[in-house]
């Protein structure tokens, strides 16, 4: 096989004959996860906290499709109920990052000068910090719960979004329509909110799902280490940690939460990418 150094241009997605099956599978998966998070308590086939010490940890069998944990609790039910703590925190983080990051990015990118320098330097410094390690140390020593974890992760994941929104704003602020609006005497807040923001919306939407993915992975990593969620609570990361010790007795207990975390993260990333592509195409066509 010969390799040309000048690669042929990629075929646009629209020219592909058959849409990839992932196109429907991934949004469907995200919808299922969302349903499980909201209606988990109603959907769980058994009481997730009902113990059966006599049964102990066991492999999948009748009555327990994914087996039981060390206290004889039903893994499938715990997995379903654990969706809420695993997903709700990351959603809050993503919303927080979206709001704060968009505000700071718009402000820095539009105003420039000293405000921008402070925002950009702050983002640089935060960006060079190992977020997960900072979270482990702070939550571990200061002893924070779920809310502190959310707040801390918002701050730590902020710089990526600030940078993206800031550079998107910078490229918009140079365009003639902004000058025109300014010449007409439109207030800066109005220019940012009604003129620039709609134009950078594709970036905002795509970063939301990206930040969700990052937060999902960080959150589950923290609860895997026993931080951020109450010990003993049903949560994907906690179950993964507990199940890892029982990998010979009931491998399903650690494999299923691992798979759910990866699938949800992949799904959110790919759907985010696609939304971004579609939104950019739509703005360009306008």
């Amino acid at each position, binding site marked *: 096989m010969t390799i040309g*150094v000048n*690669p042929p*241009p990629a075929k646009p997605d629209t020219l592909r004959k058959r849409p990839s099956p992932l196109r429907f599978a991934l949004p469907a998966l995200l919808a299922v996860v969302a349903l499980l998070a909201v209606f988990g308590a109603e959907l769980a086939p058994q009481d997730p906290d009902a113990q059966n010490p006599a049964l102990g940890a066991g492999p999948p069998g009748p009555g327990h499709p994914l087996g039981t944990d060390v206290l004889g609790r039903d893994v499938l039910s715990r997995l379903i109920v654990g969706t809420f703590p695993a997903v709700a925190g990351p959603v809050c983080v993503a919303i927080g990052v979206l709001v704060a990051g968009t505000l700071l990015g718009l402000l820095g990118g539009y105003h420039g000068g000293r405000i921008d320098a402070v925002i950009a330097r702050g983002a640089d410094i935060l960006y060079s910090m*190992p977020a997960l390690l900072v979270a482990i*140390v702070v939550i*571990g020593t200061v*002893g924070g719960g779920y809310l502190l974890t959310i707040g801390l992760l918002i701050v730590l994941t902020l710089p990526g979004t600030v940078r993206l929104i800031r550079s998107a704003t910078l490229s918009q602020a140079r365009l003639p329509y902004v000058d025109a609006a300014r010449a007409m005497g439109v207030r800066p807040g109005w220019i940012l909110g009604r003129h620039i923001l709609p134009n950078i919306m594709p970036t905002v939407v795509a970063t939301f799902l990206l930040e969700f993915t990052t937060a999902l992975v960080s959150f589950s990593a923290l609860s895997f280490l026993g931080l951020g969620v109450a010990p003993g609570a049903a949560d994907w990361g906690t179950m*993964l940690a507990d199940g890892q010790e029982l*990998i010979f007795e009931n491998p399903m207990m650690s494999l299923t939460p691992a798979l759910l975390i990866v699938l949800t993260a992949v799904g959110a*990333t790919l759907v985010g990418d696609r939304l971004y592509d579609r939104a950019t195409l739509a703005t360009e066509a306008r």
Partner: protein
Amino acid sequence: MTGFVLRRLAAGGGLLVAVSFLIFSLLHLAPGSPLTSLLGGQDASDEQIAALVREYRLDEPFLVQYGSWLARAVQLDFGRSILSHTSALARIGEFAPVSAQLAALTLVITVLVGIPLGMAAGLRRGRAADRLTSFAAVVGMSSPPFATGVLLIYVFGVGLGAPVFGAGGAGLDRLRHLILPAVALSIVLIAIVVRQTRAAVLDTCRQDHVVFGHARGLRISRILTRYVLRNSALPIVNTVGILVIQLAAGTVLVESVFSLPGIGTLMVNSVEAKDMPVIQALGMLIAVVVVLTNLLVDLVSIMIDPRLRLGVRTSP
């Protein structure tokens, strides 16, 4: 050139001072008084308490305490570990070798797999191989090391009966025990390297000198190594900073999954036991590593692209 290095050094030093302040504040932010934190919940005689108060200047204002702590930290004295009663630094030294070996193995795997794979994908842009690689990179970036670690343990440990827990003995046995953790750790890193390399190669291939080299009839291998790889090097080197951060965070998780006695395990254990001196020493160590890495990346960048010496940073 000297000015550039000095500016970078000053910025790094300033960052370290800021981080050291935050790390010192942890002692006061932790629940309970600094004294109870330092005693670790153990009963102590009046003399021991007096010694600690003197050592940490706990009877003096916050900033004085910070100053004396920083002065000793610069001399690498972070106090004694509450768990082991040895110096915090000696305790880190005990756990460091496994982590260093794991990191080295991971970086070797990452470079050997990531760069060729990224180049191959970039050169076959839009074809099946490229789409598959790019998809795999997304999956890789979304797979936290503890999730892939558990999967590897299941496949190799439960399925094939390979050794999966602990660090094993020395030499080949150690390598056998570290290979699975290193693979679990390198998956995220490979995904990052593949994406960056692919983007850099795509960018370089469009440039005139590559087209011209092609037109002159140079061999593909020569164009790839001399023209494409060299000109793609800058963005790849710039990801090293991100790689080191990912590596440090991933090490904690992977060591926890595979029960390896490394820095990550030490960190989790110290946090659980509120072993403040060790936590503070680890925090400073990680901060120094991060700052030095970024400095090194900057230096290598200006060696690859001398235009950067003017102080214009092209990296994102």
